[in-house]
């Protein structure tokens, strides 16, 4: 239970990254050979600790279909594993910008809405999306934000701006930024007043220069372990995902989470069916089951991320439904943006900027 919402957690991420090469070798062949729809099986590729404790068993009891779940550590790993061809997965969980990227690359197949009757449980807010108009290729699984987690006892005033992390030496040497290039750049763009989906090279140059200037005050670009750095006192202010800090907050109320006034990133992890899925019928049945009210409630209760399944949310207690770290107020969400897929050229521009930032 302690680590239940550390989906983007520290050890697992790196551990998976280092073992995934071996896993590819093991999982490459058998699925293809057995690829018959008559087979009562669905191959699910998911983040770690990102499903209910008994969801897979319950689904098997309800339908007789066995779920084989493999884990990935980040979108890049998911993408890298599927880009040379689907090794046999039926259902995957990419984040919004990767949905768009994979869709553009022809790596996803449409979801037949007629076979997902439980879609009626999904909040209407999530039934359309800029990254996937009409939700042809993706259905919303969980959503959340990126903001700042910090130790209330270690700051002179409550943190409410990205300025603290990007243009201030007040907490020099006690701050961490994430180590993903796009995350760090996008939040800097928000602070500078630009859209995080800008494609203007001048905006990226401005962000690059600001981050390089701020670098001496940043202790570490954390490989998504900001919550551990906060807990161990290594830093007092960390850029992080809401769920990671929400978990820390349940353990120690000195810590809190804020989406700064300039706005942050709102993300959505989606259920998709990759091209070449060997069991598309079972995949539809599984996706439909996840949007069942009780099944969805069990998942959300266990992983403590915000569910778009409003029937499921209604079944849960107030400590979940009204937790501001899980469900930020609407006016905060209004200032956030979701990341769009901006094309390979922008991606390369960001990556090259990041190489220069780290080398500076």
């Amino acid at each position, binding site marked *: 239970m302690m680590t239940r919402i550390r989906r983007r957690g520290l*050890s697992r991420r*790196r*551990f998976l990254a*280092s073992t995934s090469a071996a896993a590819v070798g093991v999982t490459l062949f058998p699925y293809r050979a057995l690829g018959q729809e008559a087979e009562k099986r669905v191959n699910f590729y998911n983040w770690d600790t990102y499903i209910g404790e008994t969801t897979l068993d319950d689904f098997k009891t309800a339908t007789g279909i066995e779920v084989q779940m493999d884990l990935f550590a*980040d979108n*890049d*790993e998911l*993408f*890298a594993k599927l*880009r*040379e061809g689907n090794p046999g997965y039926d259902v995957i969980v990419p984040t919004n910008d990767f949905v768009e*990227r994979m869709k*553009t*690359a022809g*790596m996803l197949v449409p979801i037949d809405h007629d076979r997902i009757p439980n879609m009626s449980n999904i909040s209407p807010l999530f039934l359309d999306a800029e990254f996937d108009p009409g939700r042809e290729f993706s259905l919303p699984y969980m959503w959340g934000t990126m903001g700042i987690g910090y130790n209330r006892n270690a700051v002179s005033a409550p943190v409410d701006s990205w300025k603290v992390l990007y243009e201030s030496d007040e907490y020099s*040497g006690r701050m961490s930024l994430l*180590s*993903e*290039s*796009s995350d760090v750049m996008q939040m800097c763009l928000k602070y500078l007043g630009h859209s995080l989906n800008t494609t203007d090279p001048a905006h990226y140059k401005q962000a690059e220069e600001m981050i390089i200037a701020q*670098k001496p005050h*940043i*202790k*570490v*670009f954390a*490989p998504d372990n900001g919550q551990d750095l906060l807990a*161990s*006192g*290594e830093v007092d202010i960390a850029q992080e995902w809401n769920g990671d800090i929400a978990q820390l907050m349940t353990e120690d109320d000195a810590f809190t989470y804020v989406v700064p006034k300039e706005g942050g990133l709102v993300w959505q992890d989606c259920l998709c069916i990759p091209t070449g899925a060997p069991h598309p019928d079972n995949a539809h049945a599984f996706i439909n089951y996840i949007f069942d009210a009780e099944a969805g409630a069990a998942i959300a209760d266990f992983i403590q991320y915000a569910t778009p399944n409003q029937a499921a949310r209604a079944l849960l207690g107030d400590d979940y439904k009204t937790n501001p770290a899980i469900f930020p107020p609407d006016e905060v969400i209004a200032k956030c943006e979701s990341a769009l897929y901006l094309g*390979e050229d922008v*991606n*390369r521009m960001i*990556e090259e900027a*990041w*190489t*220069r930032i*780290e*080398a*500076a």
Partner: protein
Amino acid sequence: MDDWKAKKPVFATLFAPGSVWLTAFFLIPLGFVWVMSFGEKSGIIDIVISWTPDNYLRTIETIYLQIIWKSVWISALATGICLLLGFPVAFAISFARDRWKPILLLVVILPFWINLLIRTYALIAVFRTRGHVNFGLEWLWEQADAVLAWAGLAGYRLLGERFEPLTLLYNDFAVIAGLTYVYLPFMVLPLYATLERLDRSFIEASLDLGASQMRTLVSVVAPLAMPGIVSGIILVFIPCLGSFLTPDLLGGTNAQMIGNVIERQFKSANDWPFGAALSFLLMYVTFGALAIRSLLAGRKAGMEV
């Protein structure tokens, strides 16, 4: 010894498994990477092999050469420290009693039983601000402070107001310490293998003829152990050069080594052709190191003739 030409079937049988393995799992994949390094992206997942030199031209941009240079000196420093620490250890083991040798060697190899990743995380717990080193130092500080207070010097605050923890993590020190820790056995084992075979009568002769201990070490033992030293240096330097996990986990905001850049090309940057070209650039640097080794070996062989 029989000439292999006289027993070709035996030779082929013994040679086949290794060469098939090497071809299937090393040379062919390496060939794919090499070909890919001359490709270019034509879409999100499509790569066209156009035999363009662009990827290599990109690798020799100043920024990447700077990063390679930084990787080289970090690796060289870690290798040097490994040699300084590893030589006395290997020397001691080779002169230990026979029944102790297996146990001492086991102690050297023991860390290999634990995954590299877990050992690196253990180092975080050792080095961090509230880690074991700082706890130990804080304890020493308190003891010393108490002794001073007992001696009536409390008012002078000779040791400062309170204990200031050392910043051991998230800097280049942590990266070099991490690399040294991980690769030390690769230095000790080849050194031990050479020192173990070393003819002790040379050492006796040197000492009998009046050379000091130090002189014997520098002029007799070190030259005789040179093959082991060179092997050790290569075994440590090359993996250090390509490491990405250690700088990623232990390094600060400018810890980036070339291995990190290559890793990013295959993941977040999604630019496999450029990653392949960078890998080959790194490999050429490695070949350079090996060439230096064979040059040294050649000179040594020349001297012996």
